[in-house]
């Protein structure tokens, strides 16, 4: 039912913003049956990372729902060179569809273009919106990261925040840096401190935030990851006795984050709904293979917001790695 609706939506969007001149070649209809369709993911991200795990779960669910064959491959480290090797291996196998996350466009645009040139239908998901045009990929499923930071910043500003710290677990990664830039756009130039957070050590993460709070220069915190950054940040605010003075918000969800939102310790959790970044590309590529339906160029999956009102109902789904 939902799938049908999605397919319909996809078809409509394709008609609405489709560029007829380009719908030749790789988007031509094929008559392969679904169980013969093989779709590969070549993703960055570390196995076990809570954020990427949701994407992986989305892909697995789509594999079941669509009845196609999905192989989810991810890097063993957060290493884009390794991801390039995954893409090259995929090109050699020539799957019926390839889904790539482009956290590092400089490194990945080239290999993704090679995949496109090799005639593989490619969808970029989760990160790399700007790479669609550069690489000739069919489309992007994900969120505009600058807008995520901007909107989060506007809401923080609405709560009276004047100067915020952007808690960034991967300084130098374009999609995360864009969020901090969006935040700065909302709060005004010079009003954002970017703070590097170590995701693999919660004590260190918490204490770094405490150090920032003790310096007393910020009245807002925006965490760029949920479990590993926002949870320690909330603890830091409480332990520093600054609850109520410092407004905290986060991007992405985790059970701990949702409890904090429910209890009013976090203003909101900006939700990318990244389950869709795993789920939708499989749907779109399946339809593309089966019926030649051209995927829409941009499918925004977020930001949607979890606030005090709806946090409780999302917790159980987050525990299961769906939200």
């Amino acid at each position, binding site marked *: 039912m939902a799938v049908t609706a999605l397919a319909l939506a996809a078809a409509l969007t394709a008609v609405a913003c489709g560029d007829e001149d380009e719908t030749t070649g790789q988007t031509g209809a094929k008559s392969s049956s679904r169980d013969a369709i093989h779709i590969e993911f070549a993703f960055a991200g570390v196995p076990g990372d809570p954020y990427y795990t949701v994407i992986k779960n989305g892909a697995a669910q789509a594999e079941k729902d669509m009845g196609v064959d999905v192989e989810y491959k991810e890097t063993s480290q957060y290493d884009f060179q390794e991801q390039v090797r995954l893409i090259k291996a995929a090109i050699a196998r020539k799957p019926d569809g390839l889904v790539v996350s482009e956290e590092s466009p400089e490194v990945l645009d080239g290999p993704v273009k090679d995949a496109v040139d090799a005639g593989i239908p490619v969808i970029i998901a989760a990160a790399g919106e700007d790479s669609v045009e550069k690489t000739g990929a069919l489309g992007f499923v994900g969120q505009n990261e600058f807008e995520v930071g901007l909107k989060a910043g506007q809401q923080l500003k609405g709560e009276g925040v004047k100067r915020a710290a952007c808690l960034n677990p991967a300084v130098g990664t374009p999609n995360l840096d864009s969020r901090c830039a969006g935040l700065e756009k909302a709060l005004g130039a010079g009003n954002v401190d970017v*703070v590097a957070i170590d995701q*693999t050590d919660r004590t260190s993460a918490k204490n770094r935030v405490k150090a920032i709070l003790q310096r007393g220069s910020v009245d807002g915190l925006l965490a760029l990851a949920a479990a590993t950054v926002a949870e320690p940040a909330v603890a830091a605010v409480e332990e520093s006795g600054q609850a109520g003075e410092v407004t905290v918000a986060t991007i992405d969800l985790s059970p701990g984050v949702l409890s904090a939102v429910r209890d009013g310790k976090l203003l909101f959790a900006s939700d990318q709904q990244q389950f869709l970044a795993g789920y939708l590309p499989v749907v779109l590529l399946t339809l593309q293979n089966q019926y030649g339906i051209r995927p829409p160029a941009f499918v925004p999956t977020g930001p949607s917001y979890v606030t005090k009102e709806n946090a409780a109902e999302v917790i159980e789904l987050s525990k299961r790695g769906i939200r």
Partner: protein
Amino acid sequence: MTAEEDDAGHHPLALLRRLGRRPEITPVAGAVAVWLFFASVAGGTGFLTTQGTANYLEVAAQLGIITIAVTLLMIAGEFDLSVGSMLGAAGVLMAYPVVELGWPLWAGIAFSFTGAALVGLINGLLVIRTALPSFIVTLAGLFILRGVTIAFTHDVTGGATQVGGIDEATAGSPLRSLLAGELLGLPAAVFWWLGLTLVASVVLAKTRFGNWVYGVGGDPDAASKLGVPVARVKVTLFILTALSATLVATIGVLANGAADVQQGQLKEFQAITAAVIGGTLLTGGYGTVVGAAFGALIFGMVSQGIFFTGADADWFQAFLGAMLLSAVLVNRYFTRHAQAAS
């Protein structure tokens, strides 16, 4: 010789020289230098307050507990690169049964310590039996253990990679305050660190086992001929190393309210760094526990102190590296000075 000893009691420089012969003095000097640096740069922004001190001491303590065991192992001539993965694994081993299966906290802790002892035993036996470098054997352990932890957690939780809800599940347990409580404004980890440093120092300096550790690392063949049970000493140290990571995992999970499979990455590397800053030789046979404690203290001060300075995040890693290099250089300067004096 007489002249040297003669002014030893009177001349202040001579006192410094005598002190300089203690291997611990070099990391102590490094720690003082690092502290002075941050006190001058970030003294006005909270580094010098009780909270600021507790901040870096907690980080130093958690690293320091592991560094004690890693140092003993390095003195005995072996490495354990699997401690970081052990930390992540132990957290889940403890948290999962407590939160999801309703076990009492002590049972969860006992379960994870048993699992860790087993991992240490396997590491030790593999190193002894295969005679392969422990660097390689435990490097394999690093990957295997992390991979198993991720796959296991993902499967049993039905999709997640973390176990939350620790606070609710363990509320009121006296073990909580013992492991994650506070005393005098300092977290429990700091007292565990100090206590274990004391115990390990005494064991290393005053007991037969301590002599064995030095002997095994200094010259295993000679030690073996003298009747030192080389294999037993090494296996024991591998087990202790895994247990130290488990203690830190337990403290961390209780203090932070969640276990997740990514915790502890690069801890093996940080512990070796702290041990080396503390004067432990990479080649084995030399090192002290007190030195290791100050090595961990330097690491903690540098990694947290930067955030009191308000330096740009882009520079963080470069700054960390530069500070560590300076600390090691200060160490070496003092070591040379001490050697030249004697």
